[in-house]
């Protein structure tokens, strides 16, 4: 049905006669473009154009536009144009195409690359200030929402809170157990392997105990939760923002912070200490198993040494950090979710930002706490 397109150009004196034939349709697009570009130089030399359309068997927008472009090129030099043999069906299409592309939007102004770079740096510096203000605003509106709850306890969304607690707490337990167990086991194995060289392998209990209870337990769990639940919060709130669900809530006189964000953040604040405790215990258990089977230290000795090595202070230091880390993760996840714009791409971008930023802030916070606890002697 579709036949190969052709464009024969014959010049007689100053008159260029173009005879397109075959199927001038989008399926032959690249051939058509080559054909029409090939006659451009001849068109520049000719003084008048005659187009014979009798051979055209099929025509669509793309073909019509290429032919129209040829005749426009001739028209731009004020050369007379004659088009003959258009079938009735194609005449309407050609007329339609004549109307379009009459004025082209001005091309974007070329910009100095240095200026662009400087602008980018300025914008990102401004952006980090804005990030801080978004964080503080979210913290502020959470505090206001919490005050409202204190004044009127029944306005707390208990169902939502319990459901979120189930999602971020209960459902996270298996993966947290597995990861922290493995981390504890690996630390113990490395400790025994290297401490054994100078006969200090029994001190591995001190190392595992203090490291896990003070730092690693809470840090690993917080990073896991940021990746697992923080990203889910951002994606949920982001897609609700995209589909105007959050606007719908506001128009019903409900505060999205109270309805959506507070239960999520509270659930995180409640769940993270529990998960940290479970995770720390799993890590100690993993360390104990390795000490037994790899280091030859029986469970009773391990527990007795652990009892001597760690004090309640180490445990407290770890646990105190957990709710603060949860708060940071929750605030970052929810505020990034609310910053999602209309496109799918921005949802992905904001989710990535949320995870990266909350992990970064968790580690910074851990550093600040280390300085703080050292200075008060804990």
């Amino acid at each position, binding site marked *: 049905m579709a036949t190969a397109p052709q464009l024969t150009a014959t010049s007689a004196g100053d008159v260029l006669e173009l005879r397109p034939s075959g199927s001038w*349709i989008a399926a032959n697009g690249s051939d058509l*473009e080559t054909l029409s570009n090939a006659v451009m130089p001849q068109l520049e030399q000719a003084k008048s154009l005659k187009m014979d359309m009798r051979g055209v068997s099929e025509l669509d*927008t793309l073909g019509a536009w290429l032919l129209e472009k040829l005749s426009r090129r001739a028209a731009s030099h004020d050369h007379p144009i004659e088009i003959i043999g258009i079938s009735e069906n194609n005449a309407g299409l050609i*007329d339609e195409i004549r109307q379009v*592309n009459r004025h082209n*939007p001005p091309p974007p102004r070329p910009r100095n690359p240095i200026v662009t770079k400087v602008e980018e740096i300025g914008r990102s510096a401004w952006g980090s200030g804005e990030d801080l203000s978004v964080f503080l605003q979210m913290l502020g509106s959470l505090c206001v929402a919490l005050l409202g709850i204190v004044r009127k306890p029944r306005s707390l969304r208990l169902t939502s809170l319990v459901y979120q607690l189930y999602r971020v707490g209960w459902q996270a337990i298996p993966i947290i157990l597995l990861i922290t167990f493995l981390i504890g086991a690996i630390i113990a194995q490395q400790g025994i392997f290297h401490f054994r060289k100078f006969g200090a392998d029994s001190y591995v209990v001190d190392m595992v105990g203090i490291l896990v209870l003070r730092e690693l337990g809470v840090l690993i769990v917080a990073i896991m939760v940021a990746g697992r639940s923080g990203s889910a919060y951002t994606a949920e709130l982001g897609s609700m923002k995209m589909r105007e669900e959050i606007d719908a809530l506001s128009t019903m006189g409900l505060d999205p912070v109270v309805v959506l964000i507070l239960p999520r953040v509270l659930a995180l604040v409640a769940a993270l200490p529990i998960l940290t405790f479970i995770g720390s215990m799993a890590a100690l258990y993993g360390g104990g198993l390795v000490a037994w089977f790899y280091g030859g230290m029986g469970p009773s000795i391990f527990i007795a040494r652990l009892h001597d090595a760690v004090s309640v202070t180490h445990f407290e230091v770890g646990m105190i950090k957990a709710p603060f880390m949860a708060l940071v993760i929750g605030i970052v996840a929810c505020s990034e979710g609310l910053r999602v714009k*209309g496109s799918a*791409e921005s949802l992905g971008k904001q989710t990535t930002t949320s995870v990266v930023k909350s992990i970064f802030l968790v580690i910074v916070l851990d550093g600040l706490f280390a300085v703080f606890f050292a200075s008060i002697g804990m």
Partner: protein
Amino acid sequence: MDQSAEQFAIRVSDLVVGFGRRVVIDHLTLDVRRGEILGLVGASGGGKSVLMRTIIGLIPRQGGEIEVMGTGIGSTFDRRTQAAAGRWGVLFQQGALFSSLTARQNIQFPLRENLALSDALLDEIATAKLEMVGLTPEDGDKFPSELSGGMTKRVALARALALDPAIVFLDEPTSGLDPIAAGDFDTLIKTLQKTLGLTVFMVTHDLASLNTVCDRVAALADGKIVAIGPMRDLLRSEHPWVRAYFHGKRSLMLQPKAS
């Protein structure tokens, strides 16, 4: 066989589609002639969109045959359906524009994927399509989230027409548009059908569009086509659902072309 392929753009015979135990399309037979605008009406949730999505291969069917431009459509979205997909354009109810691309890039997308054209020509074609659906070249640089409902539908139509398909499927093209915009859209579809020789399969509830642009109207009820023909035939139909549809309170404003 050849003759029927010449005459009909879409042939659906004995089609059965269901979800679980619920049968939505029940032994339905429908032919769409080449170059006509066929309007499909039916109750909300009655399977209009399901029928359309089954024809374009998005929903698997339980039985029956579908032929589009003489090519059989597979029961799932397979290679055969993919080959046929090059010959149709689809306007989804919500536009379904790619949200991370500008309007112009959305229109260029099918062209870029299927043809090897220069960037300059791609830009010219995209601008041409934008203007053909009544938008300005400047609108091409906007992202879908910055477009109004009517503009989204126009861009989606331009994208559906990007490859100059033989058939376009329109799912409620005028829903959510004001009467002026809806009227413009109808005129646009009619013009494009005339100039490009399109076959249009249109799911709609808009009585005015049915009356002004559709060559034939098909009524879908109880999973079957209960009436099909020009608007004036449908107005005379005795089927109770069709009578309720066209002679209900909302339809009193309808001025039949011939009666």
